[in-house]
């Protein structure tokens, strides 16, 4: 697996992790989770 693919899979797993986290943490954490998700998601789509 190339380094690029590894990076991509890692960002995907982080994204899923943030999604799972959103179910369990309180609503106030959305303020942290939304920017975090954008930060993880944006570089991934930027490569497209």
């Amino acid at each position, binding site marked *: 697996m190339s380094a690029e*693919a590894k990076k991509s*899979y890692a960002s*995907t*797993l982080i*994204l899923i992790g*943030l*999604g799972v986290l*959103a179910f369990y943490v309180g*609503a106030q954490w959305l303020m942290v989770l939304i920017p975090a998700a954008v930060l993880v998601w944006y570089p991934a789509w930027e490569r497209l």
Partner: protein
Amino acid sequence: MSTASLALSNTAIQRTPAHTLAIYAKEAKYEFLKNLRLRVYTASVISFPLMFYVLFGLVLNAKERIAGMGVPTYLIATYGTFGVMGASLFGTASGLASDRGLGWLQVKRASPMPPFAYFAAKVILSLIFSTIVVSLLLVLGIGFGGVRMPVLDMARLMGTLMAGSLPFSAMGLAIGYFAGPNSAPAAINLIYLPLSFCSGLWVPYIFLPKLVQKIALALPPYHLSQLALGVVGAGRHEPAITHWEVLFGFTLICLGVARIGFQRDQGKLYG
């Protein structure tokens, strides 16, 4: 023997924001026209929620009340959710699965179009069809069901359901990347119909069996329907942020799964 050589450059395409926007708009326009001409898509996505609403909201239970609310008003929120979900799932999953099967994604990949425009077009298509479904439900409710709602509430209902179409578009992308072109519609129905029932979109939540009520709490359509019901003044009056939180988490998980599917396809095609 003469030979020809071809120099390939790896220069990034430079576009102005206006040009990029024009590409996105054009892709969305043709995606919309393509689906508009697909009678099976328009008929199923638009007519099913309307048909159920007319039958259960206007013909059979027009004078009944649920949770202190007239049935025609209550069902606009639940069938609105049902319609939005259908438009989003079928618009993204079915189209994506068939495009993958036909190799259309490779053609797109070879074109200078930004690849994200393809996905954005699918989401915009879902938003447009969702708007059509909710608008028609409102027209039917106001015209024939005696629904009276302030314009601001109608706009809020529309806005809530539009925003709520995003998680289901993400879910559609995830399904579209893992289902085959022929099995996609069946796979969508297999998920869409039980989800709708268990979330209280067909039968109001309070009339669902106790076990199903417990299951509903974990289902995204339940949370969107509660947000919509909150706008019309029904629902269970739980904090709206809790529902948004679940929908947000669900969106991220679906986007992650879709991305795994995308990477899997990329790996198969380009190694």
